[in-house]
């Protein structure tokens, strides 16, 4: 794994000069505390993940899914981490690191609000002030998480430029950082941004695959044949994959948001999906060279997903590299398939997943479900007998938008609420 910030041609440090000294300082802290456990940082982090975060999370065999898909399906239950998503692993790591570095203020951006929530919780836990930037559109889509951030004592700053989603929130947080760089740490929410963020966030999230690997040996007596995780920026993906990358017998599937279509409207600068691994091209955004949704001139396109947590025009540089080299297979699931999977997992396993997570289950249905097209047999076979799906987060935060989207799309397996609500 890279520690120099380059993953093939991807990665690097493309940021305004004012930020470069802070990036250098962070890189130094990353190497000392995270990689070399100076002052027992990693021991402190692990202890807090256990006691505050509720780790390890279970690797649960899903009986009804196993039956439906004709193979052993196991769920890595990151939805059971404190706060309801894998995001806490990274947020806690970075906020703790900022404390070790002597920083006095935390800023973060958030899309679905899950990273903002996790950062707000970590900041309350570690007693450090926090401001979170969130697109206006996402604030409207994710009110419960906005309330949770404020409950934990964080400020939430609405971002109104552009379309008001994650891309704009990241740019706005970078602006704050450039202004207050001397006492402030920017807790980036995924394996994106300038080095060392992609490596550091991966290392904080790698606890997912580290546990899953051990649990697989204990419970299956072997490694899984496949690991499936949804991919927006790619933090739960890299966390779920990191410790399996060297295990050639385990296939790795990154499931992107196919949105409403993979076609792009270049004239309007809009990609109605967030599938940068599948359809993106190489470019430079938010500090790194990676795969991006962009037009032929290099202007970044507006992305789309029913899940605001996946709604980002880029992807982590390491994940882009792993897809390029063939180690990770990038696939995609559209909005309707994801919503249907959201309902199915809720009904079959009693787990209401985040809409992000539902994409991962949508892929399982797409290739191995009872209605899967005949030509998907080969893909289903490739998944093998033992499959781990990373349940990146729970869906409580998505209920409002899930209700709205469900009825707009007429998802046939959705519950009928008419008798209680008189329709929606």
């Amino acid at each position, binding site marked *: 794994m890279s520690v120099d910030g380059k993953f093939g041609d991807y990665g690097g440090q493309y940021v305004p000069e*004012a930020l*470069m000294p802070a990036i250098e300082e962070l890189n130094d802290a990353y190497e000392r505390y995270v990689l070399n456990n100076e002052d027992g940082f990693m021991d402190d982090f692990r202890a807090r993940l256990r006691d505050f975060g509720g780790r390890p999370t279970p690797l649960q065999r899903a009986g009804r899914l196993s039956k439906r898909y004709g193979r052993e399906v196991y769920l890595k239950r990151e939805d059971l981490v404190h706060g309801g998503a894998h995001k806490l692993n990274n947020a806690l790591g970075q906020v703790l690191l900022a404390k070790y570095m002597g920083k006095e203020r935390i800023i973060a951006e958030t899309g679905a609000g899950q990273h903002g929530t996790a950062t707000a919780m970590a900041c309350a836990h570690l007693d450090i002030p926090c401001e979170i930037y969130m697109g206006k559109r996402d604030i409207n889509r994710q009110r419960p998480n906005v309330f949770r951030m404020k409950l934990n004592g964080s400020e939430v700053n609405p971002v109104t430029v*552009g379309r008001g989603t994650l891309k704009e929130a990241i740019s706005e947080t970078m602006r704050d950082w*450039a202004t207050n760089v001397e006492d402030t740490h920017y807790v980036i929410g995924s394996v994106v941004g300038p080095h060392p963020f992609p490596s550091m966030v991966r290392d904080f999230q790698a606890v997912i695959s580290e546990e899953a690997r051990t649990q697989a040996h204990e419970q299956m007596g072997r490694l899984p044949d496949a690991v499936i995780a949804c991919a927006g920026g790619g933090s739960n993906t890299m966390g779920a994959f990191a410790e399996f990358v060297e295990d050639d017998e385990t296939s790795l599937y990154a499931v992107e948001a196919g949105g409403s279509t993979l076609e792009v409207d270049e004239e309007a600068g809009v990609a109605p999906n967030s599938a940068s691994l599948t359809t993106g091209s190489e*470019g*430079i955004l938010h500090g790194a060279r990676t795969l991006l949704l962009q037009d032929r001139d*290099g202007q*970044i396109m507006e992305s789309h997903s029913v899940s605001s947590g996946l709604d980002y025009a880029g992807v982590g540089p390491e994940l882009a590299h792993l897809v390029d080299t063939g180690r990770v297979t990038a696939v995609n699931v559209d909005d309707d398939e994801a919503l249907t999977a959201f309902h199915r997992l809720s009904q079959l396993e009693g787990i209401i997943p985040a809409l992000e997570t539902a994409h991962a289950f949508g892929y399982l249905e797409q290739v191995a479900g009872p209605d899967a097209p005949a030509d998907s047999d080969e893909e289903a076979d490739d998944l093998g007998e033992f499959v781990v799906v990373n349940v990146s987060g729970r869906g409580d935060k998505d209920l409002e938008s899930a209700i709205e989207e469900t009825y707009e799309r007429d998802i046939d397996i959705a519950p009928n609420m008419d008798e209680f609500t008189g329709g929606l």
Partner: protein
Amino acid sequence: MSLEDAFADGPAFIPYLAAGDPDYESSLEYVEALERGGADIIELGLPFSEPVAEGPTIQNAVVRSLESGMTPTRFFEFVEDLDVSVPLVCMTYYNLIYRYGDNSGPRPFVEKAADVGIEGFVVPDLPAEESDPLREACDEFGLDLVFIVAPTTRGERLERIMQQVSGYVYVQARLGTTGAQTSVSDQTDSSLARLSEYDVPKAVGFGISSGDHAERIVRSGADGIIVGSALVDIVAAGHEDGDDPGTVADRLETLARELKEGALSGASQRPPHSERT
């Protein structure tokens, strides 16, 4: 005329406007007004959709320009259509440079820029560590690569940047993003002091909005001043109020003249020992 030559006869006034803001034709008129007002070099913004180093004023200019149809191809046409004789510097983000042409790096963009008469580049999201490919292309076509030095830039980083810079060094007056300010930051003086030993023109930008600011900064030892947001504010206000482009151009020329005169006044008050040799 090369960029460095523009500093030969006293302090250089370097205004910035986003090309195509708010529309192609008006913008041509606005940029030409800057030369009439005394510009020695003009920084011409090629808008990028994610301008992370810019404050609200220039962000909004970028949006107006993109909405009016500005693209890299149109930008080069714009430069060809401009009737100005002072050197032009293209200010943009690296992705647009990197993606132009055959998508194999910065060379096609630099070649085209040289072809239309651009003299150099300022690329706010390209630090010295990542700039080798662009530097090589600039060397090949004889263009300058201007680097920004921030108040936080010190030690080895400063050395690395100063080895790579050509034309002039862009001294960022304060931390943060671009935007007009009502006073001049004290960070400017310490930044200029750190750079005094380097023999390359030092132009100060970020927050300068009046002749008084210009005077004060040049008196402190700057070889030039860079002004963006205060000029873009005039374009924005004219656009919002529906003013005639000729009137807006006159306002730009007036402020440009005030800034240039402020810079000249500052130079005349400068103690002899701080003048560039």
